[in-house]
């Protein structure tokens, strides 16, 4: 039976949550959104019902958080709790119903990002953990790890430095570049700590999109294999994943039999320009 991290929310039955909960974690610009979009398409092609969700997408608090972050007066306790409201709203109204219906739930960040952000902002670790003790223990946490040095060019050539991602609220008086380095550095250290504690499956996210995707597919297949209802899927795709000599691109192409290389490129491209970038804002 599914577990929580200690406390159960009123009215939440844990007995019939038959779906699979997969968390994709990682710092800003680690490529989480791109990978989740690829995974979603791939899983749906195999016949899985997939729900993807992520920070600030709750109908209750998403808009409120976005508006609060536009100003300059969102305190750190308030910020932590606003995000907790958003998370619990999605947990109760999206994640749990989807798991009950047997979906594969892909979540772009989970409580770990929220805890890491709160802790680097000086919040008491026991306090934030206590709040999230009501969260469900996921089936797996895939951690897209990338060093700050590898991150910088991605940020510069995608959308530039952002006030909150640069932790300007925490490192005022520095320019955005310095602040970004300091903030992402401490955030990464906190992630590495959480990674040990919560047994993340770490994937090197500095590789190109296809290589990372092939790595993720292997992990996701292994997670779904543990579920008897998905036996059919895991058998069908056993062969290509087991072949260690295959180039990553070929492995991906082999695992998506109906798909030519051009289709794959297009898929990767369209996923990269998907509507929401998973970083608390939408991209037109």
């Amino acid at each position, binding site marked *: 039976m599914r577990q929580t991290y200690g*406390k*159960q*929310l*009123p*009215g939440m039955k844990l007995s019939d949550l038959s779906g699979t909960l997969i968390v994709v974690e990682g710092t800003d610009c680690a490529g989480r959104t791109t990978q989740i979009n690829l995974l979603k398409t791939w899983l749906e092609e195999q016949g899985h019902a997939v729900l993807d969700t992520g920070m600030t997408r709750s*109908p*209750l*608090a998403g*808009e*409120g958080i976005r*508006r*609060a972050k536009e*100003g300059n*007066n*969102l*305190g*750190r*306790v*308030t910020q*932590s*709790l*606003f995000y*907790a*409201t958003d998370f*619990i*709203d999605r947990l*109760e*109204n999206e994640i749990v119903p989807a798991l009950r219906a047997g979906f594969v739930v892909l979540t772009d960040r989970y409580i770990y990002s929220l805890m890491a952000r709160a802790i680097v902002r*000086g*919040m*008491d670790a*026991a*306090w934030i953990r*206590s*709040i999230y*003790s*009501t969260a469900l223990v996921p089936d797996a946490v895939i951690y897209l790890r990338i060093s700050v040095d590898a991150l910088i060019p991605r940020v510069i050539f995608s959308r530039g430095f952002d006030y909150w991602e640069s932790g300007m609220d925490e490192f005022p008086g520095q320019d955005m570049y310095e602040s970004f380095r300091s903030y992402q550095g401490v955030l990464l250290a906190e992630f590495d700590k959480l990674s040990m504690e919560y047994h993340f499956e770490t994937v090197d996210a500095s590789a190109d999109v296809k290589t990372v995707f092939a790595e993720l597919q292997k992990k996701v297949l292994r997670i779904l294999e543990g579920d008897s209802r998905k036996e059919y899927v895991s058998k069908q795709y056993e062969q290509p994943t087991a072949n260690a000599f295959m180039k990553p691109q070929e492995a991906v192409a082999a695992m998506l039999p109906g798909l030519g290389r051009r289709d794959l490129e297009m898929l990767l491209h369209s996923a990269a320009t998907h509507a929401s970038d998973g970083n608390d804002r939408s991209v037109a």
Partner: protein
Amino acid sequence: MNTGNNVRIGPFEIFYPIAQTFERPRQNGGQQFPGKLFVVEGIDGSGKSTQLSLLHKWLESKGYGVVFSTWNSSPLVKDTTKLGKKKKMLTPATFSLIHATDFADRIERSILPLLKAGAVVLCDRYIYTAFARDVARGMDRQWVRELYGFAMRPTVAFYFRVPLEAAIGRVVTARDGFKFYEAGLDLGLSDDPTESFRLFQGKILQEYEKMIPEFGLTVIDATLPVEVQQMQVRQIAKIHLDKAKELRVRP
């Protein structure tokens, strides 16, 4: 004035806040502020708001720098709360969290800086309201207390104790109809709003009673005449302000 557990002040027995069992607040922990924080608590219809506004007038007339803060009033959060209530989107957990977020904003933005600056801060409802309501809605007692771990302990928390029926009578005659969450209609206790309100307030009252010893709430008998209650409130407030003469903005 001694500070035993049951001191007599005036003709009426009251509990004096001595049993401070609330853990030292974490985020604002261990700090001593020059300001004073007086809060009023009690079920709807207990008359606490009337008493607080009378205390407010008195403190102002004495020349103190007084600031008033009401429950559920953060400009950053209130639109989200309003949305959740209007569309009935709130579960016990998100109801609890959105109110904690609102409270956190008021603490960070106004209450904490004001106390540091030496003001007298008056709160109509404080964390005890959240403890009572959220637990009545089925939230874990310990979880809710941890959630508010960032709150500072008030100088005095007045609890206006009133029998359920007396409070219900005041509220029912004073307004027509209850709001959805106010009446606890989300809990499915009863389809009739007035009956649901009665049952919900009963649960809240039980929680308040448990909190009297837990947090050392200062009990005021809210069935007494308004003037008598106010005399007690002022007497108790005075004890704490005697040590804080430097707070006066006017001589």
